[in-house]
């Protein structure tokens, strides 16, 4: 099977349409399992009490916010290098979801910070770089929204995305040296996790649910963008939804 075949809008469109419900279903099932584990199975933390349970939303959202930005940069780079229309559409379709996860991470972080640190917001390295990440998402979306010509809009947004992805580590370290209060990462690949296994599982399942949701939403969004842009193409006219 040749995977490159699906880089063509006319083959991607029906494929994404078939796959999106499956990803939605997976996201739903995983979220139900994850939420069950996080609220009923996972034990109460002896230091932080019940309030810690917000991390089951907070940490997956924060992971996704960074991961989606990198995926966007990946599609942008491919789009700029090979000029493939679908790559730009994927990058564009992911942006609102990434911004949403960033916002959720900030919001739930504030809810967690109030009982734990006694403050809604502190100017700590991770919080601040997450906030700046949110600004970067907004910047890319604002730039793309301001340009009417879709080709220029795609490419300008992709370029900004790449500049952003080079800058994100620099911003992260600059802010880190500037000020740090956030507790160290609870999950690390290099050492044993500092939390109970069941908590880790809850978090990982929630992260998978968020991942599946992001894919499903990106597919749906990409499909509507394709319909809008390719409305003159013959393959769209042959679709039942293109005949209207």
């Amino acid at each position, binding site marked *: 099977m040749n995977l490159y075949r699906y880089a063509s809008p006319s083959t991607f469109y029906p494929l994404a349409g078939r796959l999106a419900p499956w990803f939605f279903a997976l996201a739903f099932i995983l979220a139900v399992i994850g939420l069950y584990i996080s609220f009923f199975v996972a034990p109460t933390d002896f230091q932080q009490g019940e309030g810690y349970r917000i991390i089951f939303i907070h940490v997956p959202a924060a992971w996704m916010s960074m991961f989606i930005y990198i995926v966007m940069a990946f599609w942008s780079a491919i789009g700029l290098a090979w000029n493939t229309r679908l790559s730009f559409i994927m990058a564009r379709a992911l942006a609102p979801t990434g911004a949403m996860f960033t916002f959720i991470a900030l919001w739930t972080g504030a809810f967690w910070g109030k009982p734990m640190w006694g403050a809604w917001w502190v100017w700590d390295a991770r919080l601040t770089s997450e906030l700046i990440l949110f600004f970067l998402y907004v910047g890319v979306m604002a730039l793309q929204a301001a340009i009417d010509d879709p080709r*220029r809009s795609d490419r300008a947004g992709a370029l900004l995305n790449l500049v952003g992805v080079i800058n994100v580590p620099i911003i992260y370290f*600059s802010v880190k040296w500037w000020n740090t209060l956030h507790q160290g990462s609870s999950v690390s690949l290099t050492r044993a996790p500092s939390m109970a296994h069941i908590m880790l599982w809850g978090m990982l399942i929630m992260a998978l649910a968020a991942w599946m949701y992001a894919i499903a939403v990106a597919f749906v969004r990409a499909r509507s963008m394709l319909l809008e842009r390719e409305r003159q193409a013959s393959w769209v006219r042959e679709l039942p939804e293109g005949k209207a």
Partner: protein
Amino acid sequence: MKFLATVIQRDILLATRRRGDWLTAQFFFVLVVSMFPLGIGPDPAVLRMIGPGVIWVAALLATLLSMSRLYADDHRDGTLEQMMLSPYSNIVLALGKSIAHWIINGIPLLVIAPLLGIQFGLAGKVLWILMLSLAIGTPILSLLGSIGAALTLGLRGGGVLITLLILPLYVPVLIFGAGAVEGTLAGIGAEANLSLLGAFLVLSLLLAPWVSATALKISLE
């Protein structure tokens, strides 16, 4: 090399002929900085503490204010397209434009900044570090800003948009720049921050003109 010199010379000549435009950004800088004591109160200890940060933030804003015009004027009268079509490298064009912007807008900021620093109760060595940090930092602002100017070329609301795109990218410059001055105030020294600022300058000198040239191509095609 000759092309680079020509681009810089031309921009400086244009700026000296339209002095009003050029002075606006400098006065904006002075005004923004002067607003802070009025809003916060004249307590010298507080002013000394916020001084470096305020001057640096105002420098970022003043740079962005003049940045939206970097390519816009040449774009409007068609000069930019002719320069892009010329046999010389577009990267050199973007580099020249950024350097010219720094000479026109960055160097005056350097000269004004110590005066504003005195108003905030900074003195002696701290003022020198402030100037030094601005001397290393403002070229970065011009280089990164030119990416935003190229991307927003000819868009409605370009001036506000460029702020939205570029200000987050300025964060490391602000942190290291203001950090150098604050480090001197606190007695920790400024070397670490200044070195990081220098490293960031080298990195943006290498990458920013190239990205700006690509952005110009995207915007003009």
